[in-house]
């Protein structure tokens, strides 16, 4: 698929050819069910998820490659739910192979460790807590996967210039190297990122703000092996007692991210000789290769609603947070995985259109929570007054002496699968189930994501360890209602829980009934449920 490669930031990226679309051949406008604009993490994840669910889409991207030209990598940390999504979509093996798996984080003040964690402890998932990888590789693997799945018309060099909507459809004007054309979409997904012209064209309020805090990324290769852990300094002696991040990515490239004086000149701090002087102070030698240097300040924004008529906003177009905690890219991927199955069921006429409203009802509060969490980290890392600096000094001092002090050190609370406790489509549950190991009814080893992949876009009902007093036949009959639902017993003749992890993540006792959504969130959890109650939960989850 790729033509000659592009050289950017020391990496060779693929170039995808522009293929003139049928509209340009016959001038006839066409209407598509689903059109996605923007081929970043969230747009590509959605296109891949839809293709994997057998649903066709068109994806328009203004570039002809992945990543951002000349800007090296952006996101680097992919958290467990993201990795589970990619396990479902089929790109996980390549991410695991190319990326760097880690679970241990340490925070330093001066030379002292003032906070540490190991997220692998207590994790039930088949995927690790984190894998670090340059963002463009993640996008690259998605493009390849989409190409092998088919069903997505990936249109490169296609820039959207105008969007208008009626109650029936969205009209999209597209500019290409071979001329302009118009297409219609039943549903349009805006995945065009932070500066979305589609969003701004509708005049939607984003509540944007900008931080005074300044940082400078320095991606670098060097010989010695630091531990493959997330190291953060709140006060680094080699960076004027300001913060530093140290992370390994793919291709043995380290990401070193330095907090700068808020009044610094971004051009000066990113000069090659200045960056190299910083690296020498950090590494204690000059035996390294600079890959890329990029100064940045961060911003945040959040839409009030992620749906506007027939248009949905995903990823940075809908929400932007500071980078501490990896809650940007990971939440964009979660957006896509939340919306994908809903669009699939609605376009297959298996659920009413109001199911789509639950996307905003679930993901907008999740983004608001991410904004709250990252804003607190920002405040800890960049105190705004002498009083705040005093409070932080007290915390760092106490963290050296007492366990409780460590819990107050905040260099980023890493991305989690946000729960949806207030969703109108869940019944007293609403949290993501880790991708635990199970066995399928034929005895083969699999996972929850493997089970979901094998049954397609349906709700999965699991009756855990039935003791016999149960209406198993009644549950099985729910499959005959014509709803997207499949029923399994966990126990003899059904799926198996060889490691007891399904029991652990469901907090299940005998006769617990779990209703699992196609995005592997728990829609309902009921001990000793009756079939009629399960049917009510299923109808609620489908907005019927």
């Amino acid at each position, binding site marked *: 698929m790729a033509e000659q490669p592009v050289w950017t930031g020391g990496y060779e990226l693929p170039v995808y050819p522009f293929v003139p679309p049928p509209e340009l051949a016959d001038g006839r406008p066409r209407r598509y069910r689903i059109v996605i604009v923007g081929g970043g993490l969230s747009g590509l994840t959605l296109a891949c998820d839809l293709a994997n669910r057998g649903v066709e889409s068109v994806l328009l991207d203004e570039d002809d490659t992945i990543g951002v030209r000349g800007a090296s990598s952006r996101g680097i940390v992919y958290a467990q739910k993201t990795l589970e999504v990619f396990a479902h979509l089929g790109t996980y093996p390549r991410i695991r192979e190319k990326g760097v798996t880690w679970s241990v984080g340490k925070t330093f003040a001066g030379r002292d460790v003032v906070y540490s964690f190991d997220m692998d402890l207590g994790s039930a998932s088949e995927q690790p807590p984190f894998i670090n990888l340059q963002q463009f590789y993640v996008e690259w693997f998605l493009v390849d996967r989409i190409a092998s799945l088919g069903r997505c018309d990936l249109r490169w060099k296609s820039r959207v210039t105008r969007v208008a909507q009626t109650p029936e459809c969205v009209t999209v004007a597209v500019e290409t190297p071979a001329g302009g054309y118009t297409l219609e979409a039943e549903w349009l997904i805006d995945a065009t990122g932070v500066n979305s012209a589609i969003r701004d064209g509708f005049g939607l309020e984003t509540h944007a703000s900008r931080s005074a805090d300044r940082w400078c990324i320095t991606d670098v290769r060097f010989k010695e092996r630091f531990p493959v852990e997330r190291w953060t300094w709140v006060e680094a002696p080699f960076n004027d007692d300001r913060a530093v991040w140290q992370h390994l990515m793919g291709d043995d490239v380290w990401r070193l991210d330095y907090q700068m004086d808020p009044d610094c000149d971004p051009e000066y701090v990113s000069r090659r000789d200045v960056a190299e002087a910083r690296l020498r102070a950090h590494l204690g030698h000059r035996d390294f290769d600079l890959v890329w240097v990029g100064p940045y300040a961060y911003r945040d924004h959040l839409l009030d609603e992620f749906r506007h008529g027939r248009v949905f906003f995903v990823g940075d177009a809908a929400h932007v947070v500071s980078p501490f905690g990896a809650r940007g890219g990971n939440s964009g991927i979660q957006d896509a995985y939340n919306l994908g199955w809903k669009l699939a069921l609605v376009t297959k006429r298996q659920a009413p259109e109001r199911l789509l409203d639950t996307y905003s009802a679930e993901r907008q509060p999740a983004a608001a929570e991410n904004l709250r969490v990252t804003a607190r980290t920002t405040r800890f890392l960049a105190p705004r007054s002498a009083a705040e600096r*005093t409070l932080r*000094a*007290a915390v760092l*001092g*106490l963290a050296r002496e007492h366990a*409780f*002090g460590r819990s*107050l050190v905040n260099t980023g609370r890493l991305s989690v699968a946000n729960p949806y406790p207030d969703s109108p489509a869940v019944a007293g549950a609403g949290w993501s189930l880790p991708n635990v190991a199970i066995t399928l009814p034929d005895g083969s080893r699999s996972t929850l994501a493997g089970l979901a992949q094998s049954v397609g876009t349906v709700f999965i009902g699991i009756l855990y360890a039935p003791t016999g007093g149960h209406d198993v036949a009644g549950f099985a009959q729910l499959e005959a209602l014509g709803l997207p639902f499949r029923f399994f017993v966990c126990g003899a003749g059904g799926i198996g829980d060889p490691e007891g992890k399904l029991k652990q993540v469901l907090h299940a006792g005998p006769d617990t009934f779990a209703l699992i959504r196609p995005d592997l969130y728990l829609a309902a959890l009921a001990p000793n449920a009756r079939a009629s109650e399960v049917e009510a939960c299923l109808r609620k989850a489908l907005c019927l």
Partner: protein
Amino acid sequence: MITDPNIPDPDGFYAALVAAHEGLTEAQSAELNARLVFLLANQVGSQAVLLDCVAAARKPFAPE
């Protein structure tokens, strides 16, 4: 939040606090107070009580 007297020896506590600040610079005193706040907060262990105390402490000053 408890607002009735609950410190067993109020004068003794006040004297110990004053003594702890003796000989410190203004910046050191500020940090000592901050350390004390966090140490006491961990003894309280109730989020609702802590937030009530923050609000009560803020009360004489201009609203946020």
